[in-house]
């Protein structure tokens, strides 16, 4: 790895989420001057919500109280902290307030009760899948008038953000794909901006490569990031992880980027556990077992999810394997386990 200049999390966030940070900054700056509106920052796992929070903390170290959650909230201990907190409260990973089980919404209800009667400004982050679920069952959207969805990146933005860390270092991009891999149809994604409504939407972009000639120079670099983005689906954290795992410094070979075919076919119990892991982002076995109840054999189902390459364990916490995030999200949406 090069010793080149490392961009701080804050400056990456400032480049990635300029508009979103402007909205949050305006809300903090105007606090006390006009009626405040609580903010919900919603993003897929690994999509960079912590970068946004780090940047807010950096900009307003004396103005905010930072109250993150690291695992499922089981007690009301956090409520007294809300009383003593400063006027602007930044709460990270609020999806840990709810557990998908009977009686699992008590903490969330306590929190919503609190913010309903509070004069403080709450800036909260939520997992996008949890948000959709909680919004369907508890209509939490009504408590957060300002909703910010962190946008997806295109290949070019990802390339610029990842390569900025390697300024001054020479990375050689190598097209070493086998001939069969280069031929045929490839479905990529392109982002287009809709006129009038000014909305960015993703459209499938089908490419056909009959040629077997090797890509050279800048073409290889673009192809590498197109390939990374086809896995990351515009998710900065996933792209970063795929990049780091594929880079064999100073060489970046196209063949190192994993091609993970998305052919998932799970039982209902496996799909349910996968939904929980996706929605909670990272969850301990004990919490998973509590949600699953006695009818789901946790060990067996988790083993199969790990074998499928969809889930991995890290220090006792289970989370979706970043490379499989797009595949998992699409599959669970298709079978309507997530809405």
């Amino acid at each position, binding site marked *: 790895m090069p010793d080149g200049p490392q961009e701080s999390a804050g400056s990456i966030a400032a480049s990635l989420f300029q508009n979103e940070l402007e909205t949050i900054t305006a809300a903090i700056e105007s606090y006390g001057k006009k009626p405040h509106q609580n903010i919900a920052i919603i993003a897929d796992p690994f999509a960079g919500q912590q970068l946004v929070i780090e940047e807010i903390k950096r900009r307003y170290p004396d103005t905010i109280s930072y109250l993150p959650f690291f695992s499922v909230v089981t007690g009301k201990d956090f409520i007294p902290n809300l009383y003593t907190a400063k006027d602007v409260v930044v709460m990270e990973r609020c999806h840990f307030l709810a557990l*998908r*089980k*009977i*009686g*699992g*919404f008590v903490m969330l209800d306590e929190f919503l009760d609190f913010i309903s009667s509070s004069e403080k400004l709450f800036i909260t982050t939520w997992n996008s899948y949890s948000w959709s679920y909680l919004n*369907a*069952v508890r209509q939490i959207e009504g408590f957060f008038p300002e909703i910010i969805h962190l946008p997806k990146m295109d290949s070019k933005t990802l390339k610029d953000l990842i390569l900025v860390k390697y300024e001054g270092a020479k990375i050689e991009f190598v097209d070493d794909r086998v001939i069969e891999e280069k031929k045929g149809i490839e479905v990529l994604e392109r982002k287009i901006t809709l006129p009038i409504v000014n909305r960015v939407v993703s459209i499938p972009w089908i490419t056909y490569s009959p040629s077997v000639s090797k890509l050279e120079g800048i073409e290889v670099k673009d192809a590498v990031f197109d390939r990374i983005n086809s896995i990351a689906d515009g998710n900065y954290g996933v792209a970063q992880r795929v990049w780091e795992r594929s880079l064999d410094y100073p060489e970046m070979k196209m063949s190192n980027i994993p091609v993970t075919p998305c052919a998932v076919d799970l039982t*209902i*119990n496996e*799909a*349910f556990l996968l*939904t929980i892991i996706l929605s909670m982002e990272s969850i301990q076995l004990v919490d998973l077992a509590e*949600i699953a*109840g006695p*009818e789901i054999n946790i060990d067996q189902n988790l083993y199969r999810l790990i074998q499928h390459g969809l889930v991995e364990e890290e220090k006792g916490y289970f989370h979706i394997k970043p490379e499989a995030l797009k595949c998992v999200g699409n599959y669970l949406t*298709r*079978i*309507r*386990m997530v*809405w």
Partner: protein
Amino acid sequence: MANGIQPDLTNLSIREIDVGTILYIGAVLVIAYLAARMLSWVLMRLSERAGVYRISVTMAIPLLKIAIYTTALYLFVTAIIEPSLSQLTVFAGFFGAALGFGLKDVFADIIGGLVITFERPYQIGDKIAIKEHYGEVIDIGLRSTRIRTPFDSVVTIPNFIIFDQSVSSANAGKTEMMVVIDLFIDPESNAELAMDILKDAVVTSKYVYITEHRPYTILLDDFPFYKRVRAKAYVNDLRYEFEFLSEVTRRAWMAYAREGIRPPQVQRILPETAGQTARISESPARKGINERRSVESQEE
């Protein structure tokens, strides 16, 4: 008018029917049958991989079958005669009349099949209740519709039945469908808590599907000797209808037991109402199951 038609009919040229013609007709029929079967099979396989679009894919099956069989019929007719357009029209009329007199039930079934295909009161994959039968539609043929009941029996229902029977489709072409779950509790138990628990049991189920247009409802009804807590919610895939019902009921009753919420006490219930406590749902499915159980117990 008759004078206009007469010359055409007398000039109707019938081809010579030899072994080749018979083989040709046989081949047409066999190919049509195989093509219809193969297309059905392929589309059913595709539909299973289509997730929420499963029923949209299967919708094409009856249409394709009609197209195939109509083509086969045309080839069959033109293999025997060489009609002009007006002759073909007259022939079709006579053929229809002959069918109408001789095979009027079969003909009514075919018309029923056409009506089902184009008007779509139900589609392949739907859960329907028709007469005393309830189940998932697994095939819509030209003559009959086949449904698979919750007991895995395949019931063949003639298509003409849609002309004089009402058909109830629980999902109307969608993958999700509403399931009604009733729990009966003792009138002295905490009904508000029972409603909260049932609500949580529904919204945390692995089978539930909730959106703005597919909301859930929890209702309470008071009866002389018990209270009924009712949940109305959508199951994410109609194939999990009974699993959804069972899972929510089981989990809710486990929580009820923890909270001291009891089922209706038998001694409170008058003999003539006792049977109602066993009734969990009033859905057509439940009705069908109860009726079947009743028949089975009578047979025993």
